[in-house]
């Protein structure tokens, strides 16, 4: 009980090292998470000139590709792939559907271009009605679990179309409906020619 008032009292512990490390890791982790979240929010769409990750599209019954009921993007290496997202409840999709089908027909014989229709969060009966109405002959399938749309656009809307070249690189993004068949061809032809 005999300490002078002007000496430091018994040494007090600061924050133990393990606690400090934990706190800083937690804080930096949180900041990192927010930064990543912000980046994702700013760039929801896959960038042009980036490689498109592989995905598998399970086709509606009645459609097939090379005899199989499903098609993988990796199987289509060497061909230009036009991925078109649509839904039966989407008005603008209906406005472009005939044009997309006509464009497909113009390329079908060459065997160098593949059109893939991806039905985004839809119900099968209505989707079938849509496909029958517009006589879609290219492979169509539902986007199971929205996995395919998440690859291209975190906040996908319909209609959207993504054109992938023969090496699997994304070359063109179309948000919203096409206005004509020639518009589609003007996009696909250069890529087909290798430019």
């Amino acid at each position, binding site marked *: *009980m005999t300490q002078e008032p002007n000496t430091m009292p018994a040494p007090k512990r600061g924050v133990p090292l393990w606690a400090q490390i934990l706190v800083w890791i937690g804080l930096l982790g949180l900041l990192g998470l927010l930064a990543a979240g912000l980046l994702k929010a700013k760039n929801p769409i896959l960038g042009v000139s980036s490689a498109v990750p592989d995905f598998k599209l399970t086709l509606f019954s009645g459609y097939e590709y090379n005899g199989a009921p499903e098609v993988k993007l990796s199987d289509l290496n060497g061909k230009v792939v036009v991925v078109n997202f649509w839904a039966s409840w989407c008005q603008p999709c209906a406005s472009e559907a005939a044009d997309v089908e006509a464009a497909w027909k113009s390329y079908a014989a060459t065997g160098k271009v593949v059109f893939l229709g991806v039905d985004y969060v839809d119900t099968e009966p209505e989707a079938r009605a849509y496909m029958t109405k517009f006589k879609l002959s290219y492979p169509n399938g539902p986007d199971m*679990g*929205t996995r395919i749309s998440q690859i291209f656009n975190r906040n996908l809307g319909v209609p959207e179309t993504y054109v992938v070249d023969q090496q699997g690189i994304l070359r063109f993004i179309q948000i919203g409906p096409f206005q004509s068949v020639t518009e589609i061809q003007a996009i696909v032809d250069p890529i087909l020619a290798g430019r």
Partner: protein
Amino acid sequence: MKTKKILSFTLYILLFSAALIPAVKVSAQQPTPSDDQVNAIARQLYCPVCENIPLDVCPTTACHQWRELIRQMLTEGKSEAEIKQYFVDYYGARVLSEPPRSGIYWLVYVVPPLAFLAGAYLLFRALQTWKRPANVSIKGADQSSPPGSEPVPDKGSNGAGDDEFVARLEEELKKRK
């Protein structure tokens, strides 16, 4: 001859009717599920395209289609679990009102109780430390009663009366640091 004809005709009719029975049975399924039955499942699901809106109150055309889909599946006799699984397969895990208990999603259920228990443990340890009598003495600094007066415990009733004194004491001490 005529009897035979009538008999065979009757047989055909009977066979034909017998063939119809399964068809009649099939069409006499459950009556159309009511809105309440549909909503009982819809309110456990979220709209796949809108943000955070439960399926039973979502106003869009697409949601209307999904509720009709639920109604159709109920008519076919599908169970609630089957319907929910269908929605997850088609539209992703986000349609459920909480993450499925698989894979990384286990973390969402496990972390809060663990953190709470960790906090409770820390609190327990802290209480233990504080209950030990004050061996590590803090003589005259900080919030103890003036030296030489009553022992440190039982500060209970002093309340704010000390604080004026203590504040001045601290300012004194700081000046000497």
